[in-house]
């Protein structure tokens, strides 16, 4: 699309030539069919009463179309031909009325036909015009960058400049536009990760490996290629790209995938394909068992041994390994109490509290604001990790640093439970250079669990389903929905939802790994040990 834009002024007031030019080379005969939709567009913009020169009008139309086409492109790659069509209509329905309405409508109309024709299967409804537009759309693909640039500025306005480098493309939450070679297991996993159904470093790592195992199982090497060369680059990378587009990879996933790629590259080209695949699947299972499952057991036993009668263990958010440790200690018959500190917006600690309470432990649950109170009772702090940095710092769920700092202040030992698969050679000094910025809207609409209690049943009934707890609570009070619901329209107001923070090494008294218990300064040593073995 971008390359057609410069042509616009030369094209004069008539709208049709530009797109026509665009597809001139592929199909000259469809050129005549083109003006039809554009003609309607011109008549539609007329009544809008906008006094714009033809060129300007066209430029705007182009920009909008480009943006739409980008979405269309996403739709086009969806599983069915029919899906993109409806998707396009949805988009039109969601269009903000601030823009000239009718123009959008008409354009949408046009683009719908594009979408319809653009499916992987040629549809019978494809007229010559539609056919032509398909080519147009495909050509437009190369110009996506330009369209994105046009769509960017409003998005940037809602970004915290300090974290500007961390805003990648926004997280994928639908299947629309996923490449066709992404395996269904991976598709499902991606969505689960994006929605935090699968959340937590270990869970994501295991789930990724299992999904990739299924990918490998269903893989057949195309003739003329060797598995070790083809599988990684051509078959696995789209899966991984898709997963990353759903949510940035965790360190453990990165480590596991790096390992898997290494394993694949080590496959002897002479090995028969079935055997090679079986071997790979076995080694994936082994990896999960050795590096995570067994490692967890070792850590849980070791860390559980640190808990004594009468201890009050404080933990933050949810870590599978901490949960296992606590339950392990409880099974040994140790009498102790657990304080779970939790925070917005994920409330992972609630799951931990539930699991522990169900297992029969004595659990106290508080939110972040109560940490200074809770720490007074605590005798030990157990933390999970997202990653251990090579400079001994702990990279974990945002808020961990506050808990560790408070514990340090009150002279409560902080113990980190972390498998060596989460060790990374990366180093970090602060939480800003590397982090993950989650969609800020999660702060406004926390998960349905978190409906504030001021929400009475009657107000919930009146509230629309997508309204948040805060909104309904506000309704109970009177005027507002959540005042934040329109934060994007408020100038200068930004929401920041980062996922992780970095805890200074001096707050950490001990890191328990499957290799043993060590001070944070020994993390790089163990990392080398574990990667070389």
């Amino acid at each position: 699309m971008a390359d057609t834009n410069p042509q616009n002024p030369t094209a004069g007031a008539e709208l049709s030539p530009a797109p026509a030019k665009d597809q001139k080379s592929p199909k000259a005969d469809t050129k005549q069919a083109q003006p039809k939709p554009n003609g309607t567009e011109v008549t539609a913009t007329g009544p809008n009463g906008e006094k714009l020169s033809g060129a300007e009008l066209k430029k705007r139309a182009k920009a909008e179309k480009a943006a739409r086409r980008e979405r269309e492109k996403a739709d086009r790659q969806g599983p069915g031909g029919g899906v993109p069509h409806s998707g396009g209509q949805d988009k039109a329905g969601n269009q903000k009325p601030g823009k000239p309405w009718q123009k959008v409508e008409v354009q949408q109309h046009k683009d719908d036909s594009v979408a319809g024709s653009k499916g992987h299967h040629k549809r019978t409804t494809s007229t010559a015009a539609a056919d032509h537009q398909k080519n147009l759309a495909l050509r437009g693909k190369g110009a996506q960058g330009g369209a994105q640039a046009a769509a960017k500025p409003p998005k940037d306005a809602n970004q915290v400049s300090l974290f500007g480098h961390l805003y990648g493309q926004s997280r994928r939450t639908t299947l629309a536009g996923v490449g066709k070679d992404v395996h269904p297991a991976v598709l499902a996993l991606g969505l689960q990760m994006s929605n935090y159904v699968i959340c937590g470093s270990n869970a994501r790592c295991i789930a990724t490996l299992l999904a990739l195992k299924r990918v490998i199982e269903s893989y057949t090497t195309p003739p003329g290629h060797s598995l070790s060369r083809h599988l990684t680059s051509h078959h696995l990378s789209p899966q991984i790209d898709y997963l990353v587009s759903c949510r940035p990879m965790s360190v453990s996933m990165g480590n596991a995938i790096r390992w898997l790629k290494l394993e694949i590259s080590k496959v002897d080209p002479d090995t028969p394909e079935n055997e090679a695949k079986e071997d790979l699947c076995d080694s994936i299972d082994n990896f999960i068992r050795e590096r995570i499952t067994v490692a967890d057991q070792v850590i849980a036993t070791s860390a559980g041994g640190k808990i004594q009668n009468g201890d009050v263990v404080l933990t933050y958010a949810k870590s599978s390994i901490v949960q296992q440790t606590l339950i392990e200690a409880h099974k040994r018959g140790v009498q102790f109490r657990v304080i779970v500190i939790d925070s917005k917006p994920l409330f992972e600690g609630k799951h931990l509290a539930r699991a522990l309470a169900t297992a029969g432990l004595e659990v106290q649950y508080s939110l972040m604001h109560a940490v200074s109170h809770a720490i007074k009772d605590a005798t030990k702090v157990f933390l999970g990790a997202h990653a251990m940095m090579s400079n001994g710092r702990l990279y974990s769920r945002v808020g961990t640093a506050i808990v560790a700092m408070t514990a340090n202040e009150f002279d409560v030992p902080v113990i980190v439970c972390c498998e060596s698969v989460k060790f990374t050679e990366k180093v970090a000094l602060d939480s800003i250079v590397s982090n993950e910025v989650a969609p800020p809207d999660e702060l406004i609409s926390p998960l349905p669990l978190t409906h504030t209690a001021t929400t009475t049943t009657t107000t919930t009934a009146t509230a629309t389903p997508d309204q948040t707890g805060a909104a309904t609570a506000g309704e109970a009070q009177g005027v507002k929905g959540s005042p934040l619901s329109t934060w994007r329209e408020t100038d200068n107001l930004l929401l920041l939802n980062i996922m992780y923070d970095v805890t200074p090494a001096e707050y950490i008294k001990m890191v328990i790994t499957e290799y043993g218990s060590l001070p944070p300064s020994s993390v790089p040593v163990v990392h080398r040990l574990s990667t070389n073995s």
Partner: protein
Amino acid sequence: MPSPTIVASPGLSSFLKSLKSTPVEASIEHLISLLKRRQIRNSRPCAVATAQLLLRVVSAFRWTDVSRLIERIQLVGQRLQAAQPRELSIGNIVRRILGLVREEAEEDRDADASALSEPGTDSQPGTPRISGVRPPLSSSISTLSPLRHGAIEPLDPTVAEPDTAKFVADSAQRPPLLTSHTSYAASATAPMATSMFSLLSHPETPSSTATPSGTQSPSGRPTSATQAVFASLTQKDLRPEVIGGIEEIIDELDQVDEQIAGYALDHIHSNEIILTHTSSMTVQKFLLTAARKRKFTVVHAEAYPNDHEATHATVTGKMVNENQDELSSEAFQKPLTAAGITVILIPDSAVFALMSRVNKVILGTHAVLANGGLVAAAGTRAIAKAAKTHKTPVVVVSGVYKLSPVYPFDFESLIEFGDVSKVFSYEDGDLVEKVDVENPLFDYVPAELVDLYITNLGGHAPSYLYRIVADHYRVEDINI
């Protein structure tokens, strides 16, 4: 449906409205119940309600003796305090009013003394007017002492006759006396200001009273009769004084935020990143004042789960005004964003991550204690500590009315615990039996985590606060 209920909902505004029409005792009961039900909460509404109620108590109470009035205020104060012991501002206001009454009484005694030493009863009717005209000075005891020293003492033993003559001349023309008195007071401000002077004057008081009245009062009137007359006169004199004093306190409560905001430009420079927590009107006004001249960025921690709605409302400028108690001018507060300030709303957990880029932490508070520590919204301590870790200065803005003479021997007793359902909603009802949930409303922040206090009197180091406490409260009132 909600709006009519809100209008009818009991709170500060409804209490203030009803105050005029309700008998005093009923008003006291009303306020006590409002406090107990937490329908009036937070420092300022509590302070305003207390001051207004005591104003009513003082004006309605028929007293014959100042000590009776003090007892009465103490009694009411004790009841209010007992109703909500963690709202320290109630006690602060009661103490200040008690201090006010005591001061007036002492001053009055001094005035009596001087009146006594000035022979003749005719001067007494002048006393109320004198006190009425006198500019409101904080230490009114010393106001009249120079007079006594300057005028009477030298004359005392020997020159009684000229004094009487002068007095007779004076009494003939009352208005000049008045003006001479006031002008004297005005001219005497310089010596009055020094506490040394009043220090010296105090011990003198009894002797100067004793000597003239007993031995050589020119008019030679019986003292007891005079005292009786005084007593009846004093109460008349004191009432407007005390009421005026209480009204001054109420005015102070009104203007305190503006006064504090006046210091904003001294503390905020351009392009700063300032972190704040919860929604505090004082902080908002402070930042808004700075925003008129400077550009900076505000990082706002939302104080989930207790104050996040108020924070959201503050940040977006959609003041819901859930408690109608806020004064109307506050309800229409413009948000910082409208002043061109970038506001970044973060959850509390992200404070540590961002602290390394923050230049200054500005906090509001619930109460300030005499040792410089503060009782503030839960989560403040972690923020202050994170700031300390990153060597970021922590500034606390607070009106003097939040400054309490209470010394926190037991921090825990100052911490109120709130509604657990804000932490654990009804959807998690299955866990409620199994899990112990805590929701503290306040944190105690030790003085060493605070770098600077800004009150309506200016900026102070935490170590200096005891001095301000001493200025505002009298030792005998520390326990109401």
